[in-house]
């Protein structure tokens, strides 16, 4: 790995740690759509490492500027309006990290992702994480954690679920789970997480498909 990619990798690990996991599920030359692409670091990395062709959707002005500065294809588009401008199965991978819980209609966006992408990657914080359960059960208060750092009254996270909830949705919608990786807030994997993911896992990275 050259110096540039090294720098990029560490940048990536700071800003989009889930990428190191999900990049395993991206093939060389894939077409990738990144929903809520931030400053485009994920696409930059995938372009360098896997020569993907892709677009990022973003609404934050500073992020859009940064994408343009770094030569990433970025489209100013609100995810809540859906993906009507993308045709069926026009991407190999559609990625949405840490946004499922913040969109107005998670089910609709999932449908849209699975319509547009051959496979999809979603990540979200686990509301079944033991510390979160504790806060509600013991203190009777809405949980605040590293993965969910907002107070109830100003949180962008309006559709929280546990891994179990998500998986029953997948079952209900006949979505196949290709891979699942459960990690803690530092994006570390461990045996405990693998054994009791819905209790000890903080963030899950799901690789799903309907094909």
């Amino acid at each position: 790995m050259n110096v540039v990619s090294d720098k990029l990798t560490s940048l990536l690990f700071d800003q989009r740690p889930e990428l190191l996991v999900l990049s395993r599920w991206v093939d060389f030359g894939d077409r990738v759509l990144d929903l809520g692409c931030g400053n485009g670091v994920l696409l930059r990395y995938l372009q360098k490492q896997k020569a993907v062709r892709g677009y990022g959707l973003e609404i934050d002005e500073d992020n859009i500027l940064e994408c343009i500065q770094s030569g990433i294809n970025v489209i100013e588009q609100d995810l809540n309006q859906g993906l009507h401008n993308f045709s069926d199965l026009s991407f190999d991978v559609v990625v949405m990290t840490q946004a499922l819980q913040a969109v107005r209609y998670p089910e609709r966006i999932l449908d849209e992702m699975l319509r547009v992408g051959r496979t999809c990657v979603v990540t979200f914080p686990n509301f079944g994480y033991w510390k979160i359960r504790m806060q509600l059960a013991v203190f009777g208060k809405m949980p605040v954690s590293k993965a969910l750092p907002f107070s109830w009254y100003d949180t962008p996270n309006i559709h929280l679920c546990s891994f179990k909830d998500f998986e029953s949705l997948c079952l209900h919608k006949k979505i196949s789970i290709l891979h699942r990786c459960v990690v803690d807030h530092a994006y570390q994997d461990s045996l405990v997480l693998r054994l009791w993911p819905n209790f000890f896992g903080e963030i899950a990275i799901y690789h799903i498909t309907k094909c």
Partner: protein
Amino acid sequence: MIDTLSKDSVGLVATHLETFNVPVLLACGRKLNQFVLSYECYGALNADKSNAILVCHALSGNQHAAGFHHVEDVKPGWWENCIGPGKAIDTDRFFVLCSNNLGGCHGSTGPNTFNSDAKRPWGPDFPIVTVDDWVKTQSILADSLGINRFVAVIGGSLGGMQALQWAISYPDRLKHAVLIASAPKLSAQNIAFNEIARQAIMSDPGFHHGHYYDKGSIPKKGLILARMLGHVTYLSDHAMRLKFGRELKNAQYQFDFDIEFQVESYLRYQGEAFSEKFDANTYLLMTKALDYFDPAAKTNNNLTEAFRSVQCGFLVISFTSDWRFSPKRSVEIVNALLAANKVVSYAEIEAPQGHDSFLLKVPRYQAILKAYMERVADECGF
């Protein structure tokens, strides 16, 4: 005055005239055996002539995009906000070329130039020109300057349409196309506004079926009306409210048909000033070129198909309050490019000034354009 010019201006510039003795077949089927294009350029063309940018002007624009013609000039070129040393289109890195479109009235062959066959000014006999024709003649100008490939072709409004046409007509002659406040074709409403403007001009008693040059008159009233109408479509309701509200010219109502509100005064002033410097026949031609522009017409009205062969990267920018070419129109272009799997970025700029925003100092717009162009310059090593 020139010595008060800021360092980020290209400073004093001159218009060049180039005569082309090559016959050019126009989209309307007519042929011009010879034509002149007037153009300006800023910055230095590098040794391998690879750092050239073509800037395309809009309806009422011309080749004078930046800098000043005389030390006494009060107003700089029309895109001074974006072209100059260190600006978004950085003349320290790029060679910037801007020509007056064929049919224009600022030096290029057009209705107000002499038709040697008829021994009189062309007037209404000048062929109808299209965006295709402009792009074709611009490419001939590029040939004459030894420019094989533009780093970017950039334009706002009708200028953006030319950039779009460049990408389709000459896919290997540009690396990037920047389309600002543009549209893939006119809507019925757009055409309607153009038709009203044309009728205003053509029904002016001074129009003389377009041969007014011989009569020593101009269809001034008609041109003023056309411009007043156009101007309203360039501004937003919000911008007009902010600028004029219901502000009166006098302290109280006069109860007559003279200018009562400031907005009336402004529009008349704008129309009057425009009628002094623009040719009515050119105005007619430009509006027709807008109406006819429809690059998807050749591909069964499928814009994605029209983009199949394009190779350049695109930056598309729209403004929220622009209702002449609203963000939706830019999104049509973007979606077709996405469907054709092309390189494209899109930004929708929050700005209250309407269509005119593309000429103004809108910070986010300028930052994005600058970022894109810097990236282009960096990747080319300029």
